[in-house]
């Protein structure tokens, strides 16, 4: 690898050093290349073979993908993902923005409130799923609590309801992530220039108008950051499904990641599992690649 040191370090003396720092990067580079990208290609290859119980080298073209998209279960997992992702993105964005604006009103005890809103982010999704599985339990859970409070006929059996099970995932996931979205928006709100606000106030803008005209338009980058986290997180959702519904009842709340895991590791259909992983990869790359490209170009310009 030809190397040139940056302007800062380029000096004759530097060249005399026996150390070649860039060589230190090589082991990490090699490992990263193999474990991230090599394995990615390997999965791609598996998805083009007849691999089932054991990996096979028999090339079958797009057969596994044809099987995948002929599988009702996979199609339902995709449809579920679309429903789940829409809500998992829209609700935290709305709620997070609302909470951030409320918290931005010179609130006493803001620190404490922020601590409470954000603490779910410290928890494992397995913990979150475990707690909500009991909170939403049709017999025990919140439903029972409300019945005891006097709402005798109250029922909440979404966990057992094929139509509604997916929404239990939304409830728990929204609970987990909203505090984070709020923190992102709050950071954005705090970054608004005070002088701009002052000028707007002098012009007679206040309250709602001030927010709508001056503050909200500056939150584009915050929105972008939040989406950049929410979208891939939705596509990759797995832990929560395992802990809360296990994809059930039936396959009513199955998402692509769970499908992939079950095919590859429980049903011994490696090729099919690999194909579903590659579809998930395409979805994530459609977000990550444009972003990385833009970041790299901005970096080069700077």
């Amino acid at each position: 690898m030809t190397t040139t040191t940056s302007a800062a370090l380029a000096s004759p003396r530097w060249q005399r050093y026996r150390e070649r720092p860039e060589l230190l990067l090589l082991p990490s580079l090699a490992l990263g290349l193999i474990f991230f990208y090599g394995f990615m290609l390997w999965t791609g290859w598996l998805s083009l073979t007849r691999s089932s119980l054991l990996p096979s080298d028999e090339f079958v073209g797009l057969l596994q993908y044809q099987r995948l998209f002929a599988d009702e279960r996979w199609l339902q997992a995709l449809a579920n993902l679309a429903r789940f992702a829409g809500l998992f993105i829209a609700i935290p964005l709305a709620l997070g923005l609302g909470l951030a604006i409320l918290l931005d009103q010179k609130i006493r005890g803001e620190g404490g409130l922020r601590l409470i809103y954000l603490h779910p982010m410290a928890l494992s999704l397995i913990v979150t799923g475990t707690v909500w599985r009991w909170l939403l339990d049709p017999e025990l859970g919140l439903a029972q609590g409300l019945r005891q409070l006097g709402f005798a006929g109250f029922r909440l059996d979404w966990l057992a309801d094929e139509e509604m099970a997916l929404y239990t995932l939304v409830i728990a996931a929204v609970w987990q992530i909203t505090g984070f979205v709020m923190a992102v928006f709050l950071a954005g709100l705090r970054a608004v220039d005070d002088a701009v606000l002052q000028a707007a106030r002098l012009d007679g803008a206040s309250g709602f108008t001030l927010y709508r005209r001056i503050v909200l338009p500056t939150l584009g980058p915050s929105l972008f950051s939040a989406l950049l986290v929410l979208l891939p997180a939705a596509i990759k959702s797995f832990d929560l499904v395992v802990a809360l519904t296990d994809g059930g009842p039936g396959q009513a709340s199955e998402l692509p990641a769970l499908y992939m895991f079950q095919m590859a590791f429980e049903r011994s259909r490696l090729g099919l599992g690999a194909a579903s992983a590659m579809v998930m990869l395409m979805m994530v790359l459609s977000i990550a690649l444009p972003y990385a490209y833009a970041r790299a170009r901005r970096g080069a310009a700077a």
Partner: protein
Amino acid sequence: MMLRRTLIYALLALFALYFALPLGFMLMNSLKSAAELREGAFLAWPRAPELSAWRAAWDALGGSFLNSLLLAVPVVTLSSLLAALNGFILCKLRFRGSEWVFIGLLVALFLPIKVYLLPLAISLAKLGLSKSLGVLIAIHVIYSLPLALFFRNHYLGFPDELLRAARMDGAGFWALFLRIVLPLSKPVFVVVVILQFTTIWNEYLFGLVFTEAESRPITAALAQLGATGEGGVRDYNVEMAAALLAALPTLAVYLIAGKHFTRGLVAGAVKG
């Protein structure tokens, strides 16, 4: 005006209740006895708080709690030191293709684990490596390589004069890195260590696939406890104690260093 303030506070308090509910609920029910479960007042405070559920939870998950510690401490230490070194090299040296390394790391940050899980499992089986904590530690360190981006972003802000001055004094690369760069990296270290500890402690899938019963980390053990508890006795006091046990270390970190935690999350999202 007064009314408006009251409304704002009421809304904020309502949401505080909503966010705090599951935690309070875990705590409440983890202190109930088996007898009290049968009477079944799910939302009530325990009448005679006792620790039997906690004892049962520790019996079931104590081993995996220690496994998670034995996993998280080395992974966090190794991966953040490696990330600091790589981040510094990436930032202060421009070599041909360095922007590709940057893009490669950035994209790697997004890749779903599912994309490399199968080849990983196949290679480990081919190499004859048994499932163990050691293997899991190595896997986590490798897949934490993109952490270098955090440090790289921090080092971009380093004044070049500082490094040049140190070099004038004859400092070699290691001296430069160990004596100047690392001590100035404390703020990033705090953020990265907290973020990485939380990530590794909470990680589930690798922990499930690459360990066996004795080496299970706590997330995998907790998920299993929930799955087996389904049919028979529904000991949710034990399950709530177990869930809280799994949550305690990261919650403690969050309470002690909440500010850095938030900063890390936000910075992580913004800077990639």
